[in-house]
């Protein structure tokens, strides 16, 4: 059985858990605990370890989805999770510009040292105060070739589109 891995990362409350839940075929393994630091100002429960989802591609192939911990103090997990990943989804809460700097830091971490295939998913596009993907591209200083995609992480179709777009990026770079 071959397994391949995709990583979903983003700042606290970007929607990583919801994103994986929307598409995973298994109940998402999520080690949520009551937040004990400043994240409790944002939500009562936040991911302090990681989320794990799974999609069976065929009898001999499985796709694993890992959601990274949002808080800075779990940075060390990112290195471990990023080993051997097929691609990366960076989720951004489009309604909270105060998280854009942190998002940049996360992109920098995953992209600087390795040639990672990634897309940016502009989450919460169903909210009235959401920044558009074009605005987010500027705010995050992303070059034109990086896809910044509209997303609603609670909507399975929306999540599918993001994953497919990421797979098209990976496909272009794949070998025959």
């Amino acid at each position: 059985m071959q397994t391949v891995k995709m990583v979903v990362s983003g700042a606290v409350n970007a929607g990583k858990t919801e994103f994986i839940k929307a598409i995973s075929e298994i109940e998402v393994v999520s080690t949520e605990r009551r937040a004990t630091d400043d994240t409790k100002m944002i939500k009562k429960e936040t991911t302090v370890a990681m989320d794990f989802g799974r999609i069976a591609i065929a009898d001999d192939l499985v796709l694993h989805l890992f959601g990274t911990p949002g808080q800075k103090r779990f940075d060390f997990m990112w290195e471990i999770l990023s080993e051997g990943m097929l691609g990366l989804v960076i989720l951004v809460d489009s309604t909270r510009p105060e998280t854009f700097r942190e998002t940049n830091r996360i992109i920098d971490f995953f992209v600087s040292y390795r040639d990672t295939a990634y897309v940016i998913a502009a989450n919460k596009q169903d909210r009235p105060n959401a920044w558009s993907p074009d605005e987010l591209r500027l705010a995050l200083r992303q070059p034109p070739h990086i896809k910044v995609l509209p997303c609603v992480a609670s909507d399975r179709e929306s999540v599918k589109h993001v994953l497919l777009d990421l797979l098209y990026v990976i496909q272009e770079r794949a070998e025959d």
Partner: protein
Amino acid sequence: MALVGNIRDFGLSDFLYLVDRGYKTGGLHLSHEAEMALLFFEKGKLVMASRRPEDQHAELLVRLGIVSDTQLAQARQSLAARGNGATITQVIIDERLAKQEQFQGQLQSFTEEQVYGLFGWPEGEFRFEQNQRPDPGSPSIPTPISVDHLIMEGVRRIDEWGRIKDRIPATDMVVRFLEQPGEKAKGVKLAAEEWRVFARINGRDTLAEIAQKTNLSDFDTCRIVYGFLTAGLVDVQKKPKPMPLRPGAGAVEPPRVKRSLVNRIINRIKSM
């Protein structure tokens, strides 16, 4: 009895406040991971600060250009002749081996930079040895520095560092010019200090290397480069890690994924 603790629990600014208000005299020993620092206070004012053992010796005055080797040798001879109680600083001033203003200005700037760097330590053990004084041959400042000013500037720099570090997370990053500077870069005028940094940008040197070559502190170098970043003149990138080499082969390339495998995943996701 020594005061001991950790600046994680009792911050450096709190400790400096205590030294100032308590008119304390003594040596403050700090350590954080592989780094160390030693600060001496006289009646609540700072007289010496060093973050490297070699900066606790009078050769520092030669490196800072305050005296020459010959003048330092002369000062040491006089110090030995004077006996107990005198310091190398007093000898240099008394014998006019250096101008007091220049001596004060350059050594004070150096000393302040040593202390400002400590405000960035998130934690570190400290030990304050009451009534410990620097060695007479050590380079103490002619006129001790008020701690109030150090606290204010140190705290301001922490705030500024926070903002700078959003875009320049570490000093081992490489600075390079943008091929197409942004609109904001038009009409930028640089101060002399900024030109010094600007002239050293070559796409290979790290911020720490530029700081070393320009004799500016890490903070000042990062502050200036932060300005260039904001103006759209440069960008900073992590220094590429050297690629490990296999014997008899070129650089190792990351494993590439098969297109057929990606196609299978795409088809499966589409069908969901």
